[in-house]
């Protein structure tokens, strides 16, 4: 009891605000960004499109419907695990605040946690025995392995360049901006697009082919959680890209030295972060609207090429470029 009090104090003083600002707000923002994306896509298709809040409406409706899914336990649990993990992943990188949970090897943990939601849902779907869902799962897993490889190589490039596995350390500013760093960031930018399950890489769900693929068997709140987990994953990926290009600490310190008000730097960074998120969403959705779906083998051949490029980046980083 005696020891718990200061811990609780720390929790209330630092952790709760951190979680509230850095995790909850972006998580709440995620469906909103999806609303923007849907609207942008609609506009490119010359139609009015749904209200910005539409994704929220959808999720609220799904949650109000309650749990409706039956079946094997792993299948039923998968959405909860997926959602929790996706929130955890989000807490590992700086979002609104410059801070994040940071520990040795967090880069690797981040990489793996990012993949957990789709993998766990794939496993759950295989257990349903539905053929379409299993085909979707197979596709999801093949894609995931390709993504993971490319992702690992790009992160390795950055880690080698900065000689650190702490996520905090591989983020900007990059005092010497090496070509390998630029290449790695470019590849990660591509991955944040593709791994977010956007066309032409939206292959596992593939509505017209697999009727929803891996999410086929979910309904009600579980479906909401799966969808929400995907949205959180998307915002995590976008955040990662923003973190890699936005020199947060540099921006904060500059502003702090120039301005009388201490917090202003953080506020500017947060605002920049959110506007970058919106810009990214608009760009991504505009790109998405202009693409058709690739076949799995075609997508894998594109990813193969990016593995080669990422390999080149690693070699370059090793040689000090």
């Amino acid at each position, binding site marked *: 009891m005696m020891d718990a009090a200061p811990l609780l104090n720390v929790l209330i003083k630092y952790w709760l605000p951190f979680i509230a600002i850095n995790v909850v707000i972006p998580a709440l923002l995620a469906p909103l960004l999806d609303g923007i994306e849907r609207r942008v896509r609609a506009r*490119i298709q*010359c*139609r*009015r499109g749904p209200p910005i809040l539409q994704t929220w409406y959808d999720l609220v409706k799904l949650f109000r419907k309650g749990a409706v899914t039956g079946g094997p336990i792993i299948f039923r649990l998968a959405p909860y695990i997926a959602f929790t993990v996706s929130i955890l992943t989000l807490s590992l990188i700086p979002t609104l605040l410059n801070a994040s949970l940071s520990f040795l090897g967090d880069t690797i943990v981040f990489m793996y946690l990012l993949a957990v939601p789709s993998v766990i849902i794939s496993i759950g779907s295989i257990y349903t025995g539905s053929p379409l869902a299993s085909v979707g799962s197979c596709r999801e897993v093949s894609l995931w392995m390709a993504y993971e490889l490319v992702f690992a190589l790009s992160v390795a490039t950055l880690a080698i360049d900065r000689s650190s596995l702490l996520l905090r350390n591989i983020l900007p500013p990059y005092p010497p901006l090496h070509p390998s760093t630029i290449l790695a960031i470019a590849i990660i930018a591509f991955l944040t697009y593709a791994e977010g399950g956007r066309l032409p890489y939206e292959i596992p769900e593939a509505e017209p082919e697999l009727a929803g693929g891996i999410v086929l068997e979910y309904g009600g709140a579980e479906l909401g959680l799966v969808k929400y987990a995907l949205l959180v994953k998307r915002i995590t990926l976008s955040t990662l890209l923003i973190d890699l290009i936005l020199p947060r600490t540099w921006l904060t310190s500059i502003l702090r030295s120039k301005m009388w008000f201490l917090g202003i730097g953080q506020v500017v960074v947060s605002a920049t972060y959110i506007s970058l998120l919106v810009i990214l969403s608009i760009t991504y959705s*505009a790109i998405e609207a202009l693409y058709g779906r690739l076949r799995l083998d075609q997508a894998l051949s594109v990813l193969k090429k990016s593995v080669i490029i990422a390999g080149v980046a690693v070699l370059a980083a090793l040689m000090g470029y």
Partner: protein
Amino acid sequence: MGRLGFIKDYLRYGVVTEKYPYEPVPTPETFRGKPVIDSSKCLGCGACVNACPANALSIEDDLRGGIRWVRLFIGRCIYCGRCADACPVGAIELSREFELSALESKDLIQEVGLRMVKCVICGKPFTTYRLVREVMRELSPDERVLTLVCPECRAKLTAVNTSFARW
């Protein structure tokens, strides 16, 4: 890049979505919408019932109440307009109304109940007053009385007359 052409299309055509249901959409004047029976004109002759390919129109005689029901079930109607072609008095027409949805299927029914003439011989209702009136107009005053006799009794009457004549 060919794809960017689609963004150009958006800039060129803009949002084409109509505002319905907040603003009404026009229907062309040729539009074949909800068939409406003009209950003041309908004779209850059943020409439309015979013409209707979908059996959306039906006719039923309530002998006890002496009412002929012409029933239109727009939930079965195929909006072909054959009833309007067939109607001798133009009592049924296709309107331009298309907002026909209802939460209960009974709301999709239009019924016209017409009083029936009781046969002056057997007392059984057999046709509507309006139809009789229409038929009478075509006939000379002397023949008109016969229209108040139902077909069966008319057959009997003819039989009686011929046998009487022979006798």
